[in-house]
């Protein structure tokens, strides 16, 4: 079996999540990714989680997860010699993925024009919150601003409370995800036209055009209102709601009347189940709160596991709101080998999420763990750039590499 992206050479220059996730997706399918780290290390090294909450730059969970299958080199881009090595490296690769921003790149002397002129065969993928062109290109932003600037936050949460952004650092991951897809398109294009291009990925635009696209099309063309926050229930049909049960929450959603009937039969067909006002998924909507009260009093003392077992037996689509701990134990994920083992910088075993897709002939695979800081500096400088051992030592002595 071969890897799908074997032979694709990529350099990553960035910090935190988006660029690293983009190149992880490529590396896990076989691309040869060289990650450039500054002397102070990537900020995911200090993000954790750490075993026992003991900070350890070689054992940070986020760093280990995001950098599997890559080689790592230590380079000080603030030094002219460091920039020179970077420049020479770009001559020998197909793709540069960066999320540093234009100001930082300008400082290093690698603005878009310079890159194009010096490396016309290089695909450059840039990831930022707002994009590299346009009236807000200099705005500062994080994932929070992408959630805000896309309508995602406005449409999520309780109508009487504040909008809710996407959780954790999900927008940064989505930036990396889309960047990887666009990069592969550019690779295919290059193979046909021999012309490289610059890709400008905006996380705000991803959340606005893709995640929110249909909602915004509906608003623009008048087929639906602007979209509001729905709290725990969406009033398009009923049931589409989250209700509390003994040990957490259950999602009650179905568009099929037979599911509802089966569930009512399980409840022993109570009087309210036969109320004429509740006869179909649309007629129930104005009475949703009343029905929810009935449901909670009927099943609120049961556990998620109990209810889910019943739902699976009677063929009803209601599912538990699982916690992450439930997923870690889930038989489905174990069956499919979703969680995978790698090691941290001390060789200690670590379990991380695995393949997002299973390709039968050129599979996703964990070949090597995330590199220790500067682990492959010597290897890459000698093998890829053809430097002599003495030259490598000299570069270290002047502080360009480590």
């Amino acid at each position: 079996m071969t890897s799908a992206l074997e032979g694709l050479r990529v350099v990553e220059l960035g910090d935190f999540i988006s660029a690293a996730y983009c190149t992880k997706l490529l590396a896990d399918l076989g691309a040869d990714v060289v990650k450039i780290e500054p002397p102070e290390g990537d900020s995911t090294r200090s993000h954790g989680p750490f075993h026992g909450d003991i900070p350890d730059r070689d054992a940070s969970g986020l760093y280990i997860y995001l950098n599997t299958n890559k080689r790592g080199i230590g380079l000080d881009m603030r030094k002219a010699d460091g920039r020179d090595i970077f420049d020479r490296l770009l001559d020998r690769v197909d793709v540069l993925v960066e999320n540093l921003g234009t100001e930082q790149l300008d400082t290093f002397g690698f603005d878009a024009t310079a890159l194009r002129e010096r490396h016309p065969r290089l695909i450059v993928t840039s990831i930022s919150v707002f994009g590299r062109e346009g009236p807000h290109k200099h705005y500062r932003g994080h994932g929070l601003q992408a959630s805000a600037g896309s309508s995602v936050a406005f449409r999520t949460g309780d109508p009487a409370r504040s909008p809710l952004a996407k959780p954790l650092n999900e927008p940064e991951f989505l930036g990396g995800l889309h960047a990887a897809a666009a990069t592969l398109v550019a690779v295919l294009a290059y193979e046909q036209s021999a012309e490289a291009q610059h890709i400008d990925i905006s996380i705000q635009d991803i959340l606005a055009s893709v995640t929110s696209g249909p909602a915004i099309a509906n608003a623009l063309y008048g087929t639906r209102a602007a979209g509001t926050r729905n709290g725990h229930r969406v009033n398009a049909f009923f049931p589409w709601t989250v209700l509390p049960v003994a040990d957490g929450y259950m999602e009650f959603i179905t568009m099929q009347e037979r599911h509802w009937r089966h569930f009512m039969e399980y409840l022993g067909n109570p009087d309210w189940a036969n109320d004429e006002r509740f006869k179909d998924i649309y007629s129930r909507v104005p009475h949703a709160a009343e029905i929810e009260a009935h449901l909670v009093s009927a099943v609120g003392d049961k556990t998620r596991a109990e209810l889910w077992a019943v739902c699976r037996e009677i063929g009803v689509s209601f599912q538990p709101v699982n916690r992450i701990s439930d997923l870690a134990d889930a038989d489905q994920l174990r069956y499919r080998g979703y969680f995978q083992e790698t090691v941290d910088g001390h060789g200690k075993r670590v379990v991380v999420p695995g393949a997002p897709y299973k390709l039968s002939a050129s599979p996703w695979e964990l070949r090597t763990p995330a590199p220790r800081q500067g682990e492959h500096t010597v290897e890459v400088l000698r093998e890829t750039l053809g430097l002599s051992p003495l030259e490598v030592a000299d570069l270290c002595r002047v502080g360009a590499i480590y």
Partner: protein
Amino acid sequence: MAIAPLKGIRVLDFGQVWAGPLLGVYLGDFGAEVIQVVSVARSAVQATAGVAGEPGPIAYSSLGRNRKAITLDPTNAAGQEVFQRLVAASDIVFDNFSPRAARKLGITYELLRQVNSRIIVCSMSAAGQSGPWSDLLTYGPSLTALYGIKSLLGYAGESRIQEDVADLDPTAATYAFIAVLAALRARERTGEGQLIDMAQGEAGLASLAEAFLEYSFNGRELGPSGNRNRRMAPHGIYPCLGEDRWISIAVDSEAAWHALCGVLGRPDLASDDRFVTMFRRLGNQDALDVAIGALTASQDAEELTERLQATGVAAYPVLDSFGVIANDQLAFRRAGYAVAAEGITPEQVVNPTPWRMVGSPPTVYSPARPLGADNDYVYDTILGMGAAERAKFSARGAFG
């Protein structure tokens, strides 16, 4: 010169609702010939994909753009025969059915590779092609519940918020697109197709890896935390002047903190004992959010954003759908997207594939097509059927 890198790639699209049709959009935007297969009996499920009939703006903005549209019912023998002839002439088949439903249509890789060894089959089911959950019936919002994604969404301590839309769908479609492109590249070398077995839930979990890692390392459930962040404070959405108007603010440095207090007219707050460092602010977020919210409430969200950005503070207004349409930055980007169809402007396409790439731009070529509009092209031109043969298949119910 701009090129369409997927030109010449033929795709059979069995996408339903959103995740599937969006994969068809991605492929079509880069030049693939995407044939949307609708069996008349099932067409109701495809409402989102098939906004069609009139080639007005919504038909270009819909998930049905850049398609050929055919009717075909592969559940009967005649339809299955036609389907296999199409597979022999195609590069990619994809669906987002449950494995059981896909089998009923004959979308089984082991079978299809006998017909065409170069075929790439991408099945993007809820929980994957194998395992005890593989045939569970789920909807987008219950899939995010099942896979723990929903447990992270909400105000602190309450994981019971519905997504407005099932936004795992577009994320799953993007993962699927990567897998399909990778399989195409592998095929250039090996000459062989393959099966892509994608569980949408598993793909969704990957973007929230932090939560799993925290549990795996320390047995700790992160749970929902509203708009808070683990390394920035303040980091939140605060009320502004007007009805349901809000601003997002993320303070990522001490300089930004001082700038924020200055712009809000309370430089003294910067040196408040509780808020004087990032670590202290993270530990006093309840009081911090109350203090910030009280100061933003009398301000205009757009104006405050400009003033904060001018001093280097990450801030942005919370936009609703109309705000997104009117937004200068998004309008700028949208104006640059490629539209090759006559009578349509880029501004009218509000769900472009949002990647700016001039060498091979995602392009809007044609509106969603009405049901069966391309039967002649596909059956006569591609498969070379004549009127007599088509009538025979039709009489046996092949075309739904």
